């Protein structure tokens, strides 16, 4: 079975108040030196068949139309290698 990962992140120019809240909480927990946090989403898609170009094209289409809102978010599609 093959796994394809879609990472979705807010575009850099879109304010991420959740990420900011996490960043502000870190020093109080003893985690210093982290200057910025952006919070995103990760989708793990298990495929029935082979991860060929056609399958990836369909996943990109799903990411573009559904998994991400491209008005405010960017996405990256990548194949996770076997055995990991």
């Amino acid at each position, binding site marked *: 079975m093959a796994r394809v990962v879609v990472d979705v992140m*807010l575009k850099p*120019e*879109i*304010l991420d*108040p*959740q990420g900011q*809240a996490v960043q502000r909480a870190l020093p109080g927990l003893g985690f210093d030196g982290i200057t910025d946090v952006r919070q995103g989403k990760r989708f793990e898609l298990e495929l029935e068949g082979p991860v060929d170009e056609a399958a990836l094209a369909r996943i990109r289409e799903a990411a573009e139309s*559904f*998994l991400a*809102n491209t*008005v*405010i978010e960017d996405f990256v599609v990548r194949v996770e290698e076997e055995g990991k």
Partner: protein
Amino acid sequence: MTVRVGVVTFPGSLDDRDALRAVRIAGAEPVALWHKDKNLQQVDAVVLPGGFSYGDYLRCGAISRFSPVMESVIEQAQAGLPVLGICNGFQILCESHLLPGALTRNDHLHFICRDQKLRIENVSSAWTSDFAQGQEITVPLKNGEGGFVADERTLDMLEAEGRVIARYLDVNPNGSRRDIAGISNAAGNVVGLMPHPEHAVEPLTGPTTEGLPFFTSILKRLVNA
């Protein structure tokens, strides 16, 4: 003629009953529509109510947008059917690309619930014609993801074309760009609004009755059509 205004119920809608009631108080016939049913029952206008449709899973409005009823709403809205999206309904309209931009997490991260002052900035849309230009109203506002964002070019276009239909006054409650509380599409038949006019239609239950003109606007427009 009787004007029939449909209100869609999605799983997780909260304000569908109040929207139906507002339609009735405005003098139109309320028609309950169901998310799984493509049939809009030949209504003259549609309200997408507030709430948390499909649990806000993925993104607010992202799943509702692909519901059977929205297929018909999107198709008919593009052909001129008046559609008002309130709160979650506004989010659904943005996810459907019937309106530009998106609604994001409030900049202060808190859910807000307050009576909010607004200024009506455009009275030519299908849902605002019964207001006076520049009229100031107070209606409830309640959201966690109500910050309206769009790129600068889109914001400039909305302003230039007079498509900002309402703006927050006194305080910007959620970090919306340019204090935008509501916008319309280019034709003016589709309007999205983050505050809740359907909760301000009678003195017993609302802070004011200043939300009612949203619903009487559509009635007048359809009766005169």
